[in-house]
């Protein structure tokens, strides 16, 4: 039954998303941008839904300039993420690391990788199996806020935990 659910989820998602984003729920930055992203994530009122994770648990943490250190606020968010992932073992997650536009493309890719890894390490330390978590860096390629001011940069320096189908191996 569990397998069937997993397969159906995969089919549903693959049917509508780009081939590069298998099984993602919600607007991970790998997708088309900052759309509402509901629908496939289930009802936001259902605590077991990826949409609940996104809206209520909080799917992202932010970083200071050129840093990958987790702030107390980020740790609190990640504690919630870890608990949700422990409660919902049928899901995995891709952690996306991002940077603001004030850096070169390649350095920002490496910086985003650091940020994603910092989140993964924290979640693993909180008991989430590392096999359920993968990381990817988008560097400065996928900003969610597009002004060239600190207010936007602060939003873009982020790591987003994107829930995917499947409980890992």
């Amino acid at each position, binding site marked *: 039954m569990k397998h069937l659910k997993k397969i159906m989820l995969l089919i549903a998602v693959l049917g509508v998303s*780009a*081939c*590069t*984003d*298998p099984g993602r729920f919600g607007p991970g930055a*790998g997708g*088309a*941008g*900052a759309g509402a992203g509901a629908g496939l994530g289930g009802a936001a009122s259902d605590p077991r839904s990826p949409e609940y994770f996104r809206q209520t648990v909080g799917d992202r943490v932010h970083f200071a300039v*050129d840093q*990958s250190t987790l702030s107390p606020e980020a740790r609190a968010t990640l504690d919630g993420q870890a608990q949700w992932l422990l409660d919902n073992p049928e899901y995995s997650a*891709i952690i996306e690391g991002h940077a603001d*536009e*004030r*850096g*070169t*493309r*390649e*350095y920002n*890719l*490496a*910086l985003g*990788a*650091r*940020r*994603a*890894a*910092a989140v*993964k*390490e924290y979640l693993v330390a909180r008991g989430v199996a590392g096999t359920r978590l*993968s*990381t*990817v*860096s*988008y560097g400065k*390629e*996928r*900003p*969610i*806020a*597009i*002004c*060239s001011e600190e207010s936007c940069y602060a939003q873009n320096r982020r790591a987003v935990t994107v829930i995917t189908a499947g409980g890992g191996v």
Partner: protein
Amino acid sequence: MSIKRILPLLVVVLAGLGALSSGPLTAQERPGPLRIVIDEGVIEPLPFAVPDFIAENGAAREYAARITRIVAADLQGTGLFREIPKEAFISSVTSFDAPVQFGDWKAINAQALITGAVSVSGRRLTVKFRLYDVFSGAPLGKGLQFAGTTASWRRMGHKVADAVYSRITGEGPYFDSRVAFIAESGPKNARVKRLAIMDYDGANVQYLTDGRALVLAPRFSPAGDRLLYTSYESGFPRVYLLDLGSLRRRALDEQPGTMSFAPRFSPDGRTVLLSLSVGGNTDIYSLDLATGKRRRLTSAPSIEIAPSFSPDGRQIVFTSDRSGSSQLYIMPAGGGEPRRISRGKGRYNTPVWSPRGDLIAFTKQNKGRFHIGVMQIDGTEERLLTSSFLDEGPTWAPNGRVIMFTRETAGAGGTSALYTVDTSGRNLRRVPMQGAASDPAWSPLLK
């Protein structure tokens, strides 16, 4: 897409046009006024005249004037030459072999005169040209003839301009070259990026990917026949190798849980350097293309990225933030103790070794501005060539005298464009092309 559209077949016949050759004088050996030395401080552009090349038969008519325009645009675009408009001409050139009326060209202060003729037979196009030093009343170098297909007519113009440029400056040619880049479209928060290739002057754009997967930062192989680039088509950034002839491609590094990017070829084209992120830590690796054997060249908890070989293949310049901010380092090609070369304030990234071996170009970030700069390989004599909201990613022209880079404008509507600048900091120009573009990679001179 066929091989011919990517790399148009060009048969080049370098034939001295015997009757008018003036002996084996090169620009370096030659005394007299027709000479530009690029390192000299202020350059007054050298006035030249290039009357429309003669169409030697009916089929050549549609090409002759257009090829002449390529020659003029290439030379004028260097900032080292100034074209005299044809309205000023006293003489007209009606035959390639007619004697030159030097007095008429002197009178309008043309220091260099370029004459040419074009003939077409079927799909075969032949261009011949002569360069004259007007004030000494003699040809400069031998007349030359280039032959190719009609489809490659623009390259004929570039070949003529390259010969003229080299004879007058003593520098290597670079107009007959291509640029791989990332074509950009769409809004800033949903940018579509496609791998593309074009002539160095923005003409003949061809798209190599369809935009479904994010692609970044192509690099040319030393022979110009292959590209490395980074693509997210697997969902994760990975380095791909694309053969421009067959358009076949393969992923170079497919280890799950890792990301690879910022690749570059070795000078012999057999090895690829790339930056690999494992568990959030990015280091530099080399990959033997034939055997697939991988070797780790750096192992530090800091970020090590963006390696570039010296032209002799013995050293690698790269970026590391081991000191707390991004700086440039050089290490032996096989790895080993790196030495820091960047010394100024600010952060340094994307170092690229000049094909001449004498300079390293880089991106510098300081006090909220971005610069393209060059320094000696020991880190001395740093010169910032540009300054803007965001300049990055220098790539060298084949002759090591010109740098192309990405300039991005600020704000919600910010877009990217390609620019060129001389290593002297002169002649900043936007590459004329339609649509936004980033991440240029200059090819070697075409064969």
